[in-house]
């Protein structure tokens, strides 16, 4: 074990910068502990307790910055120290360099970018509605990342957008891909002729990624936020998005993604689609085939099917051929599951799904309920299957870790894996658990180090349990996290890795059926 450090005289940084740099340093392979703090007496005493108080730090003053790293050998530690210095330098030049370009208001931003036609709003929900209305009054499209926007303000913004033909994506819209630019949590996808309107964030990520991974491309990915399809909001943003795609020359195929819309919204969609000539894929998770067909759209029951059908339509393949392929594939999945089930011991019978993405959790819940019966959840399909305590699983369980109860005071689980990692280990200790199911959604805005943050936990699981770990990775090869390396690392930790949530969920469902769980 080696410990080394650097003392920087008279350098000061804000606390968050130091904490984030320290966190990044801990992700460097071989680094066991790191500290980046001011040289106060008290901080020195903590360094001493952590075995990192170096001789040269002893005379440091409150105005000196101390960087200490503990790692497996000198080489690792020196590399980490250099990396920390780089990160600090970058943070400084970033804050200095950007200072001239950080406007404090919409008007200020427009002075810098007078040609901008879309505003991304991410302020406290209370103020987001007014900001959106202000932007719409200037004829700008809007994406509202914030949630908890007062409902009357959100509705007013949507009404203005609808009247003016401007997009109002949100409130609580986490994902969009506009003219190839990923906004919020989004993936780097190929450009093409498939346009998506989605009232489901991870649904949009899953469908756009599968399309891109299977030879198709995206013209626009318009998010609306899940609440838009409720009666109160009347699907105003969804309809505006749909109209935009119908009018868009670059879009040849349209995909609609949502939970089943309210009846009144459905009626409006029927009106809009009445004279549409473009093929439309309707993925209303949990809705009947008839509802989708009433729109003149091709019905699909999963996000995967939506993506694959859109690619087929874009390439001129028929719907019937596509359906046949999907049906034939079912046998393959069953055989795959049969093989996996052989690894389990008697007594292992339960499924435990721990999700980052709400739509993915919902889709898996629909698939499993259909295959193995009711599933307990913090977001159940039926109220009687609501978990008594979301922190504790019961029988077959699916937990959406993106729900408010888990995110208060901590980053979204797509960014911070800690909470789920803890829960994974708890599930692994339960001898009745047969399948631990995880989604890993990569792309912009999400955790940049999924290998470092997840794989060590899966290796722990391997030591204490022989439960099957099934992981679905949503993303593309162009995403910043290096998807290929991620999948290899997951497989090396004995996880069974898939790139389509519905496929992976079916594998899991057949495994449970096979063992009679």
């Amino acid at each position, binding site marked *: 074990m080696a410990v080394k450090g650097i003392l920087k005289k008279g350098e000061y940084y804000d606390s*968050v910068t130091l904490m984030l740099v320290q966190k990044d340093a801990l992700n460097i392979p071989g680094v066991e502990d790191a500290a980046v703090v001011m040289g106060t007496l008290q901080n020195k005493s903590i360094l001493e307790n952590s075995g990192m108080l170096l001789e040269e730090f002893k005379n440091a003053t409150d105005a000196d910055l101390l960087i200490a790293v503990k790692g497996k050998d000198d080489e690792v530690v020196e590399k980490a120290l250099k990396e920390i210095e780089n990160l600090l330098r970058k943070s400084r030049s970033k804050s200095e360099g950007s200072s001239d370009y950080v406007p404090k208001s919409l008007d200020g931003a427009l002075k810098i970018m007078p040609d901008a036609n879309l505003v991304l709003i991410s302020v406290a929900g209370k103020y987001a509605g007014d900001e959106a209305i202000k932007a719409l009054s200037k004829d700008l499209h809007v994406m509202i990342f914030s949630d908890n926007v007062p409902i009357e303000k959100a509705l007013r913004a949507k009404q203005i957008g609808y009247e003016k033909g401007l997009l109002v994506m949100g409130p609580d819209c986490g994902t969009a891909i506009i003219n190839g630019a990923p906004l919020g949590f989004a993936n780097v996808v190929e450009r093409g002729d498939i346009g998506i309107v989605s009232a489901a964030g991870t649904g949009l990520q899953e469908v756009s990624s599968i399309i891109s991974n299977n030879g198709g491309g995206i013209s626009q990915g318009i998010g609306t936020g899940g609440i838009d399809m409720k009666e109160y909001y009347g699907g105003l943003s969804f309809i505006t998005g749909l109209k935009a795609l119908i009018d868009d020359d670059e879009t040849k195929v349209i995909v609609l993604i949502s939970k089943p819309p309210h009846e009144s919204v459905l009626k409006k969609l029927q009106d809009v689609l009445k004279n549409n000539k473009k093929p439309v894929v309707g993925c209303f998770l949990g809705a009947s085939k008839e509802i989708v067909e009433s729109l003149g759209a091709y019905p699909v029951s999963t996000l995967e099917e939506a993506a694959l059908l859109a690619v087929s339509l874009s390439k001129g393949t028929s719907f019937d051929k596509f359906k046949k392929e999907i049906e034939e594939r079912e046998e393959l999945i069953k055989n795959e599951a049969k093989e996996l089930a052989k690894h389990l011991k008697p007594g292992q019978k339960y499924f435990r799904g721990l999700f980052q993405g709400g739509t993915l959790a919902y889709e898996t819940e629909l698939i499993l309920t259909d295959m193995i019966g009711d599933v307990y959840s913090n977001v159940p399909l039926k109220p009687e299957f609501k978990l008594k305590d979301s922190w504790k699983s019961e029988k077959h369980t699916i937990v959406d870790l993106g729900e408010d109860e888990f995110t208060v005071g901590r980053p979204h689980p797509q960014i911070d894996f800690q909470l789920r990692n803890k829960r994974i280990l708890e599930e692994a200790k339960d001898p009745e658990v047969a399948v631990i199911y995880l989604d890993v959604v990569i792309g912009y805005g999400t955790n940049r180090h999924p290998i470092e943050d997840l794989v060590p936990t899966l290796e722990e699981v391997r030591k204490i349990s022989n439960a099957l770990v099934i992981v679905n990775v949503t993303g593309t090869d162009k995403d910043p996290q290096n998807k290929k390396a991620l999948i290899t690392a997951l497989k090396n930790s004995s996880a069974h890795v898939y790139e389509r949530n519905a496929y992976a969920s079916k594998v899991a469902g057949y495994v449970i059926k096979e063992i009679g769980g």
Partner: protein
Amino acid sequence: MKVISVGDKIDLKLKVLGIHSHFNHAINIYTDKGLVFIVSKDVGSGPNSIVLDESNLNKFTLDDISRFDYSVYSIYNSSFELFHKDLEVLVNNLKTLKDYLFNYAHPLSAVFLLDSSRKSNFVSLFSLNLANQLEESFNRLLNFDLNAIDSLKGLGYGFTPQGDDLIEGFLAAIYVYEKLFDLNLSSLRKTIYDRALTKNKVTNTFLYFTSMGLFYERFKDVLKALFTGFNLEESILKMLSFGETSGADILTGFIKGLEKLLEGGNELWQ
């Protein structure tokens, strides 16, 4: 550069000695009368602050001080008087304040002292040791073990360490408690301040004014709102935007301190 407001504890005949530290929105100046903060308008006023009608001070130099335009400015009153003493209103608003901290404060702020589940955000041995030390020392201070200040002051990351922010919040809690029950604990506040002094001139300045019952505008707005409910959410959010985690850390110290005082009464320090 147009001056909008000048703190009530600034003597404008001061002599500038140099720059202590320089941020985009605040320049901390050494003067013969102590530190003076020259800040942009979004930062807000303070007892020793000069607020300029500027949104960014990145290009500020000391020469600019001689060109300050003092033609129209207000004097900021940093003292805090309590006109409404409704404990029920205060307790309800403290709940709202906590909710806002849980929802909006940085995961690595001292808010883990109010919600222990946030401690899981501290992962390395060093940061856990630090969080544990903050918790242990601050809990001792809450029980008026003033020796705890020695291990709390200067503890934490960054320009204004969390330990100092917690002490500042605690001092504010004592002051508010005095106002609520018409007490005078100024000598206790002075003892805490004297003991909390370090070589960090910026936190010494914050602690000094708070120990005197003088507050920076954003904190004063929260204190006022806690007793009236007026602009509560807005003032909390503004306070939380202060100094990365400082706003949340000060408010944590304040809430914990005030709750302890309301629960324990004068037996705590006697």
